[in-house]
């Protein structure tokens, strides 16, 4: 039996009024999906029922979540399913999953560098392992193993460091040598005659890839099933703050009064926080990715090379998905560039010369909200009732479930649960940064 996520119920206090019935269990999205239904639908040719519907924007909500990406939707789901919060709205200026959540390369792993980070991302990985059952939606999580290559002594040292930190947190992670790498990825050039010989790799068997759209749709469907209003094409244009507390949100579809607002807008998040008068150490940079035409499966694991600034995985359909580091400047533009593809191709071929005849199908780009320490900013802000779940940089997709779970608890109890306590906005005042650059700059 799958274990249900354990969420400590928040202290009731003034937030008690929110609950329809305290401790209400999660709802099951209807209609339920199953193999049987799929077969019977095949015979009857009937349409599948819409899984979420349009609502009018109501003048009042208990919680308004800005951003209909994975983080906003997961927060809405955990609030509704585990805390019985009833009147929740998720607002998105475009469509659900139109931001980073629909553009990422879907790598899920927990082999980070700091104990705080490893604990946090590992909780998310565990939630992902049970997510298909939890949401009654096939999220196609494929734990195919994750390799981070080291091409020099410095790199190898960081891999050893990460492996040791990972082990202390109970995460399966170890350094392996080129022979073992060759067994896992026969197509890779592990000889010492290359420009950047491979000295070893950090191997993380539980890591892998997931179907990112399915995760977004699964949370959206489950949240909608619990009565959450999902408002697409609804842009937030202002946030009302009186005497240091949030009182409402202005949108292109009317004003909403609410005492609780959550900023889940990733690349656009500084613009939203500014509306509430909250400053954040976040800058926005594009991150690009590309896929090739599909070919027969030959690459099982995810392969990342920090020195070559490139990573690759093969999807279930057979396409190779490539990515790199963020573009080296800030921007809100999601146009791809030729420099990116050129650099990518030359680096990929250093690792896997056999790919030289493959053709790229397309490239795209998404916005990343970068923080100085490559860790997220989650929790309350100096403005009462205004919460942030931002700073997801290039690594936030894997964190969706844990961030949603923790954010929901943070909102109902009005304080940060332990798992996110180190990721508060106040750390930039106290100087207690959570440096994850060594584990997050290239391998997302």
């Amino acid at each position, binding site marked *: 039996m799958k274990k249900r996520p354990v969420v400590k119920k928040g202290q009731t206090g003034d937030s008690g009024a929110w609950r329809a019935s305290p401790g209400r269990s999660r709802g099951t999205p209807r209609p339920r999906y199953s193999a049987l239904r799929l077969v019977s639908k095949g015979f009857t040719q009937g349409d599948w029922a819409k899984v979420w519907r349009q609502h009018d924007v109501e003048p009042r909500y208990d919680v308004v979540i800005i951003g209909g990406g994975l983080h906003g939707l997961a927060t809405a789901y955990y609030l509704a399913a585990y805390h019985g919060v009833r009147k929740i709205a998720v607002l998105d200026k475009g469509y659900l999953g139109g931001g980073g959540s629909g553009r990422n390369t879907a790598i899920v792993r927990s082999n980070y560098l700091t104990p705080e980070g490893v604990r946090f991302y590992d909780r998310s990985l565990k939630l992902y392992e049970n997510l298909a059952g939890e949401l009654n939606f096939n999220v196609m999580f494929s734990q195919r193993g994750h390799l981070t290559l080291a091409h020099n002594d410095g790199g190898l040292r960081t891999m050893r460091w990460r492996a040791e930190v990972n082990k202390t947190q109970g995460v399966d992670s170890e350094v392996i040598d080129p022979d073992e790498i060759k067994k896992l990825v026969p197509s890779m050039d592990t000889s010492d005659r290359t420009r950047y010989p491979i000295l070893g790799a950090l191997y993380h068997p539980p890591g892998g890839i997931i179907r990112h759209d399915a995760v977004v749709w699964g949370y959206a469907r489950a949240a909608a099933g619990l009565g959450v209003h999902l408002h697409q094409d609804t842009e937030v244009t202002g946030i009302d703050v009186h005497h240091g507390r949030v009182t409402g949100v202005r949108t292109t579809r009317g004003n909403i009064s609410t005492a609780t607002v959550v900023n889940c807008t990733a690349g*656009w998040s*500084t*613009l939203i926080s500014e509306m509430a008068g909250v400053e954040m150490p*976040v*800058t926005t940079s594009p991150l690009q990715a590309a896929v090739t035409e599909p070919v027969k499966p030959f690459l099982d694991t995810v392969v990342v090379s920090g020195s070559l600034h490139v990573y690759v995985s093969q999807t279930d359909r057979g396409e190779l998905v490539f990515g790199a580091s963020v573009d080296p*400047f800030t*921007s*809100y533009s999601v146009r791809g560039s030729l420099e990116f593809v050129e650099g990518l191709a030359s680096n990929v071929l250093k690792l896997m010369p056999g790919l030289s005849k493959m053709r790229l199908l397309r490239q795209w780009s998404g916005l990343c909200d970068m923080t100085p320490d490559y860790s997220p900013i989650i929790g309350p802000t100096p403005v009462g009732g205004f919460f942030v779940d931002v700073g997801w940089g290039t690594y936030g997709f894997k964190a969706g479930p844990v961030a949603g779970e923790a954010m929901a608890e943070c909102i109902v109890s009005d304080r940060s649960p332990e798992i996110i306590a180190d990721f508060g906005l106040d750390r930039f*005042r106290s100087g207690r940064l959570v440096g994850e650059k060594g584990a997050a700059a290239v391998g997302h």
Partner: protein
Amino acid sequence: MMQIPCPWCGPRNATEFRHHGPHAPRPDPATASAEEWRRYLYLRPNPYGPVEETWYHAAGCRRFVSVIRDTFTNATQWSEGGPR
């Protein structure tokens, strides 16, 4: 490709430059308060639209140039402010 107008070399491809971001004068470490230093270290404006910023022409004249760039279109123009 995005181009940066260098006052000494003319418009050149952005790949020749290093982005330094919006002008951020460094406070005097001897007299700055902790709060001023914190702001200098971590808080950078992240505007949507035009911003005046510094680029370093690393693969060219190796000078710092001041440019106004629209962060949405990435269109750049020569900044009256002159080099940093």
